[in-house]
């Protein structure tokens, strides 16, 4: 388990609504199982941003699709007034119809993380498969949980239900209407000893800490364990549409690689839809800029030496 200050990012999730409704499989935000998406109120957002002032790493704005939040511009303006651009990141698919946000994105965020979930070679982990349904012994469950690769590589999160040590725990809290920590300045100083109650509440119902077969992200189907199915069957729009598979609770010996979309052009093509281009930052992330991408050094080499 990592402390929150050891993470790359803490996310502020401003909505779980997404234009790709019912088009993805195993969405980490689980919004397709909720009758209505949430849109964070400005006051809540303000509280979240204020709480992150002084956080030494990146503060992310995430969804769902954050660009479809009706107050996106206002949120950007406020975020930038409180936290330096150098520490702000945006997770988006740059959806059609929001192209006018290109310049505010470039002005506000030093980092953008583009993934439009349209590729078949991206795999999504089935988080709605509880480890407590797969691993019978409680002590073994917590051995897995302690080694959870997502807690070690993904982010903590704030959503309308509070602050969470893990973004998947935050999604489960929205799905099952559970509360997180109060959002107050410096909450992010919490260390693993402070996570116990959230770990015990959320991790056993999550599949993140156990190796499971992953599903191609464009398959539309969610893998759901029997317990989750029982909880959600009468209210989940996605289950009602039949876009689910009840999981066989088998551990995978060889889970598929999560994201195989790291070829050179993929993100550039997405950015170009908004008249933007990306450069790599010294810390290995992507910075957005307006305009046409200047030739890379590699393309210059190819041109010079061909």
């Amino acid at each position, binding site marked *: 388990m990592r402390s929150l200050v050891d993470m790359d990012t803490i996310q502020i999730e401003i909505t779980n609504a997404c234009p790709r409704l019912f088009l993805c499989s195993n969405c980490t935000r689980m919004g397709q199982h909720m009758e209505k998406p949430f849109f964070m109120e400005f006051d809540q957002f303000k509280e979240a941003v204020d709480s992150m002032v002084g956080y030494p790493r990146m503060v992310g704005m995430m969804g769902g699709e954050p660009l479809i939040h009706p107050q996106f511009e206002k949120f950007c303006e406020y975020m930038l007034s409180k936290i330096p651009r150098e520490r702000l990141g945006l997770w988006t698919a740059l959806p059609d119809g929001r192209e006018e946000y290109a310049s505010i994105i470039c002005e506000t965020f030093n980092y953008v993380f583009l993934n439009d979930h349209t590729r078949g070679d991206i795999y999504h982990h089935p988080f709605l498969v509880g480890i407590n349904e797969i691993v019978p012994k409680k002590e073994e469950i917590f051995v897995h949980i302690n080694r959870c690769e997502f807690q070690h590589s993904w982010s903590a999160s704030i959503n309308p239900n509070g602050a969470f040590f893990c973004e998947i725990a935050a999604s489960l809290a929205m799905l099952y209407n559970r509360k997180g920590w109060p959002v107050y300045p410096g909450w992010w100083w919490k260390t693993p000893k402070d996570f116990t109650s959230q770990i015990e509440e959320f991790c056993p119902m999550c599949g993140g800490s156990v190796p499971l077969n992953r599903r191609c992200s464009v398959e539309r189907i969610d893998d759901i364990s029997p317990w989750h199915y029982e909880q959600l069957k009468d209210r989940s729009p996605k289950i009602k549409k039949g876009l689910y598979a009840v999981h066989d609770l088998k551990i995978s010996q060889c889970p598929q690689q999560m994201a*195989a979309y*790291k*070829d*050179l052009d993929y993100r550039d093509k997405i950015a170009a839809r908004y008249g933007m281009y990306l450069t*790599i930052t*010294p810390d*290995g992330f992507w910075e957005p800029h307006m305009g046409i991408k200047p030739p*890379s*050094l*590699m*393309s210059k*080499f*190819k041109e*010079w*030496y*061909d």
Partner: protein
Amino acid sequence: MWEKKIKKTIYTLAIDNWRPEITSITFPLFKHFAKKIGADFHVITKRRFLDWPVTFEKYQVYYLAQEHENDWNLFIDADALVHPEMPDFFQWYTKDTCGHNGSDPLGIRYRYDRFFFRDGRGISSCNWFTFASDWCIDLWHPCDDLTPEEAIARCTPTVEEEQTVCHAEHLIDDFLCSRNIAKYGLKFRTLMQTFKDNGMENPGFLWHQYTLTPEEKYKRMQEVLRAWRLV
């Protein structure tokens, strides 16, 4: 300004247009390095040693180096990456010494014979990045005292190699290079050691992952290019 020309050539191997998606990345970097250090660049494209596994074709350097009358020869595997900031390391070598980027202990992979016993240094070649002057051209002396089958039989891949894509027949170029170092008594110093001696420990100018499939390799190479901020 007058400068005495030191004739250098960088060689690589891409028989029958091998993996153009990979060489489209690696060759511009090789050419850039060649330009930077004033070397020629030569791609070996045709087979010469038809009885041997294709990897043995890099031993054509023995003949090409003589034909090109080089002072220095450098062979780089076609799936390696060379950072644009890679310095001209030949300045740190004298002609009596050859080298590779790194080397391993010999007994891990190879069966000793009298040349190895007599030499005693136990140098196991990692010949994906190999260099030698005209004085040490025997580094690439084609094997004339073992059959391909005998050479392959003396190679035992590591567990990782055997479980991935690198089997005994893929190791014979390393084996025979190691054997030439021992057989001809070539002085040897790794480039890694040389960099360290010159204040650059693990500088990260080179990248080569030989246990990946070409598809995995291509993806990893793109990640490296991003990390190097070339794309």
